[in-house]
């Protein structure tokens, strides 16, 4: 059992989730309510990681973050280390390939809130922050929770993009999914089996939670 890889995966998943929480809420609300020019194109861009092969996405991210790219050079100048094959690079890639998992459920949850309910908040004298905290987030929370769980589970199991961008550096970029692959390559089926079972358990628990939250949202919508 590669505990370092498991901890690294959990750390990556948690950070990805935390970073995508405000991004998802902001983008989800905007896509749900604000008339945005080129909305379909934006939605397509957000959904792209769902259909793109992970290796293709990983390749483009590797190129974009590599030492030869302006972004990669700027990062190196600022922080004194290269972005590719580092935890920071892995995290940026993870945030990007998880965009659809975070934004789409949140967008659906915000879309389900009737515009009059938010207007009623304004008529009650609430500020935009009060409306967000007292009305929108409590109503959209099942969708937000669902988004976070999906992001968490998806990051935990991602293989292609992680391998392309991070390689397999123990304690830095070797996640549990890559560790399982390594163990199988080394004919250590027992360790691979154990880690797979742990991953299966965590993913099943996460996805069950997500479905439960979605069911709760639907019940609320049918009564609203």
């Amino acid at each position, binding site marked *: 059992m590669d505990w370092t890889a498991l901890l690294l995966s959990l750390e990556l998943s948690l950070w990805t989730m935390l970073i995508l929480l405000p991004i998802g809420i902001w983008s989800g609300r905007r896509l749900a309510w604000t008339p945005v020019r080129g909305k379909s194109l934006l939605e397509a861009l957000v959904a792209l990681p769902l259909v793109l092969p992970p290796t293709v996405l990983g390749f483009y991210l590797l190129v974009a973050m590599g030492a030869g790219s302006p972004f990669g050079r700027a990062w190196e100048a600022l922080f004194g280390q290269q972005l590719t094959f580092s935890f920071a690079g892995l995290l940026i890639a993870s945030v990007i390939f998880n965009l659809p998992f975070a934004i789409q459920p949140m967008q659906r949850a915000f879309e389900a809130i*009737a515009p*009059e*309910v938010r*207007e*009623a*908040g*304004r*008529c*009650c*004298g*609430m*500020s935009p922050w*009060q409306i967000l905290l*007292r*009305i929108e987030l*409590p*109503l959209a929370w099942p969708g937000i929770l669902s988004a976070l769980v999906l992001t968490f589970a998806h990051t935990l199991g991602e293989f292609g993009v992680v391998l392309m961008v991070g390689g397999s550096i123990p304690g830095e970029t070797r996640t549990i999914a890559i560790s399982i692959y390594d163990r199988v390559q080394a004919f250590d089926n027992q360790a691979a089996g154990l880690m797979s079972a742990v991953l299966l358990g965590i993913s099943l628990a996460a996805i069950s939670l997500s479905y439960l939250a979605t069911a709760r949202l639907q019940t*609320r919508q049918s*009564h*609203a």
Partner: protein
Amino acid sequence: MPDGLHLTLQQQTPIPLEARLHCAPGEVLALVGPSGSGKTTLLRSIAGLHPHGQGRIECNGVVWYDSATRLCVPTRQRRVGMVFQQFALFPHLSARDNVAAAMLDLPVEERQQRAQRWLARMHLLGLENRLPRQLSGGQQQRVAVARALAREPQILLLDEPFSAVDRATREALYYELAELREELRMPVILVTHDLDEATLLADRMCMLDHGRILQTATPDELLRAPASAAVARMLGMRNLFAGTLLGHEQECSVVRWQGQTLRIARQAHMAPGEEVMWAVPGTGVMLLNSHATSLQPLENQVTVKVTRILALGEQLRVMLQCGSDTLTMSVPRHVAQRHALSEGQTLQVRLRGELIHLMPATHAQG
């Protein structure tokens, strides 16, 4: 000194709007018109929920919007109490918390106490902890009214508040609102497409069509003297016809209609020789008794043919052909039986000239 709401608005997009209105404190002003007439847009403009065009909105001396000085007070600072068509209660909050949500500037304790008082006022005691979905339509509407009033608003805005409840509940709510308005010292704007509702609840009615105010008057004035044929049609007046004004005599005006001469209440504002529209309410058409002595000065005897009789409960609606026009008369069932009314029958009716109102023919065919 609070002097109510003063509004002047003009816009071309997204919906054309041209309105000027005033609503005094304690007055109920109904905005009446068909779908798309701009009544809800106007209400939302007052609340600041709709982008404004050119104009000015002032409530009790405080300017909420002025396009000339680019002043636009945000909704949350306008102190409006608004009841939405579908009530728009916060679905995750109890009835009490819904009402308390309108008083976030107060300490929690006071907020809860006041919410409780408002719920008691709206006959909702015992239902404080229920979520909106656990309340009936009428109860939800009362919570929405309590929430709107809890804020101690400068103006109460009601957007078709009775359309989402059944007929029996609606009747009960009419009385509650009528009672409540006795206590409210604020302007109340009611948006509705239901004429009976407006007539029952409003002090004045503002008739809107295609974003323009056609006439603002008391329900009685409107029914007695609609400003145009368009208003008469919106008021559901069936007896609306084209004629020619022959002239004015000392006591009456004389109109030519379908080859007959009608003597009507003197309306000297119209010029003789002018094409006019004239309207008479259903009560202005009466069966002529065979043994009636003589006609009063403003009673006009007209020969008609019964083309159709529709039974509407205890009343019958009788269609009467006169030339190419059809008069509509409403008679109690027993009167119809006494006169043995039947389709195809020819009979004499009286048109009460004092109830006939003349209007310009400009929009007659509109």
